[in-house]
């Protein structure tokens, strides 16, 4: 079974065949309201391939115990799989060492970890730069830090197309800038940011850079060495893995210099009532029992993705995006929100005279799952003068036919609502 293949770091290689890929995701064959499921909400959370489901089930059925504690074989076996998951992540993003891979419960926790630890080294007047298209999880932690210790939060404006230019970022940088915290790819609009160039600009002024890679890790090959980023945060569940697991990549020297995040078991090397010493990386940042099986599930998801040539997946998703953009533009009174030149796998829009929630309810009855709302990016919605949009987002398993179903269902929704 697949669960056993997990133990090898290098996974088999497969040709990207869309029909076969779809068969790998059992949920895609179910119906919703007697219609085939058309799942266009992968940017919120992706569906899981059988290989991931099998590994999770295998662990609970055959090989479950706590990690790093028991001197017995069950615990040792799962501990080695948990650590193997870390190695799989390291390879996947090309980090230098597995000491640089911290498991968290999600990307939100990963960013909060940085704001609560690296952030503690900042002083009043120091500047943190974010952009106008950030997800709330890359806004609020910095606002909390601002309120706590008086840092200045600067917002890089975005263009009418929903783009962030390197030039605008450079204008925001000063010698007081200590951190630039930006998305790799916008969750609401799909805009791809020039993160490598932004990282270089940040470093040129002496600032560090944190990249919110929740969408980026899914749609682009990420090489943290090549990007030269100081932190890269992402979650497992958008990457076809289970929820409850996230990753914070941090350069070793950064993580080493930071104080711990939470206190508890696992993150110490010695404890007395007077004084405690911290464990080595990455355990220093993993207090308490970690999300063990979710981490292994993430390892399996990475194996699954890595079995394909990522270029084939990217090409397929680009094709879907181009096709959906073209088809949507044929509808009357539609307004696409976010028309940046470089976009990935998500498309946001509003339809005149129909509120996104009403559209989503009607689309659901056609089996179509889309996200309607502010996408946890209210300042971005304000920027475009809307309270909500409909977002269709694509995963590796979506098809052009599903785009057609979306268009048909939108037509029907408009008949009812307008």
């Amino acid at each position, binding site marked *: 079974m697949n669960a056993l293949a997990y133990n090898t770091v290098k996974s088999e290689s497969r040709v990207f065949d869309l029909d076969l890929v779809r068969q790998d995701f059992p949920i895609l064959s179910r119906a919703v309201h007697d219609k085939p499921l058309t799942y266009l909400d992968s940017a919120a959370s992706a569906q899981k391939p059988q290989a991931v489901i099998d590994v999770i089930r295998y662990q609970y059925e055959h090989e479950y115990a706590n990690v790093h504690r028991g001197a017995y074989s069950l615990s040792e076996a799962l501990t080695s799989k948990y650590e193997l998951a870390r190695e799989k992540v390291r390879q996947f993003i090309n980090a230098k060492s597995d000491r640089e891979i911290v498991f968290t419960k999600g990307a939100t926790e990963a960013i909060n970890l940085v704001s609560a630890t690296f952030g503690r080294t900042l002083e009043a007047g120091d500047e943190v730069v974010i952009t106008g298209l950030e997800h709330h999880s890359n806004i609020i932690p910095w606002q909390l830090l601002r309120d706590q210790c008086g840092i200045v939060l600067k917002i890089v404006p975005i263009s009418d197309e929903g783009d962030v230019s390197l030039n605008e970022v450079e204008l925001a940088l000063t010698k007081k800038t200590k951190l630039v915290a930006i998305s790799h790819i916008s969750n609401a609009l799909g805009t791809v940011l020039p993160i490598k160039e932004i990282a270089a600009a940040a470093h040129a002024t002496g600032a560090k850079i944190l990249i919110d890679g929740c969408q980026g890790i899914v749609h682009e090959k990420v090489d943290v060495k090549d990007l030269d980023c100081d932190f890269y945060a992402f979650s497992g569940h958008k990457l076809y893995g289970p929820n409850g697991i996230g990753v914070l990549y941090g350069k070793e020297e950064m993580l080493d210099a930071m104080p711990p995040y939470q206190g508890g078991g696992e993150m110490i090397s010695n404890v007395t009532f007077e004084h405690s010493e911290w464990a080595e990386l990455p355990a220093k940042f993993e207090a308490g029992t970690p999300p063990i099986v979710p981490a292994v599930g993430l390892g399996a998801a990475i194996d699954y993705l890595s079995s394909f040539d990522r270029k084939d997946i990217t090409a397929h998703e680009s094709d879907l995006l181009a096709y959906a953009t073209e088809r949507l533009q044929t509808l009357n009174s539609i307004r696409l929100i976010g028309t940046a030149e470089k976009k990935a796998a998500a498309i946001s829009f509003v339809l005149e005279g129909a509120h996104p*929630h*009403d559209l989503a*309810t009607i689309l659901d009855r056609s089996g179509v799952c889309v996200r309607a*709302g*502010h996408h946890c990016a209210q300042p971005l919605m304000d920027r475009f003068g809307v*309270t909500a949009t409909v977002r269709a987002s694509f995963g590796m398993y979506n098809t052009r036919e599903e785009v057609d179903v979306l268009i048909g269902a939108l037509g029907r929704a408009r008949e*009812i609502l307008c």
Partner: protein
Amino acid sequence: MQVSEKDEDILSLYQKIILDHGKSPRNAGVVKQHNCRSEGKNPLCGDRVTVTAALGDEGQVLNLKFDGKGCAISIASASMMTEAVRGLRADDVRKMIQAVAKLCKEDTSDDQFFSEYGDGLGTRIEYLSALSGVRQFPARFKCANLPWQTLLSCLDGNDSATTEG
């Protein structure tokens, strides 16, 4: 296109009267001489509605307006509310708020419902029965209910309400 059973649910949710109120809401705005005001907000979905009312000495609703942004269901519900409660005494308004929650949520038969609430609220309740299409869409209950809970908080002397969480 053939009308399927599922379409019927949708058509009963988005009845003409609902769409009409959603597009051309009645009593939109602010009661200038209001003596109570409350703001309803559902932060997850972004719907918000501010209710202002002029209440008489005995709590009767002399005037009621709403100002809001949201989906067709929440706007229609707010608009219909302003028409349905105008002139009612406070205890009848409270009864009506209860009735609407039941109407939008519970699968009670019309007979049962009207025998419970029809008395006293009469045709006003009948008018609101168009909101019952929400029953088949539990996720949208909070939209239909937001204006009513905001009105309730207004009567209770509170300044905010939500139907999320």
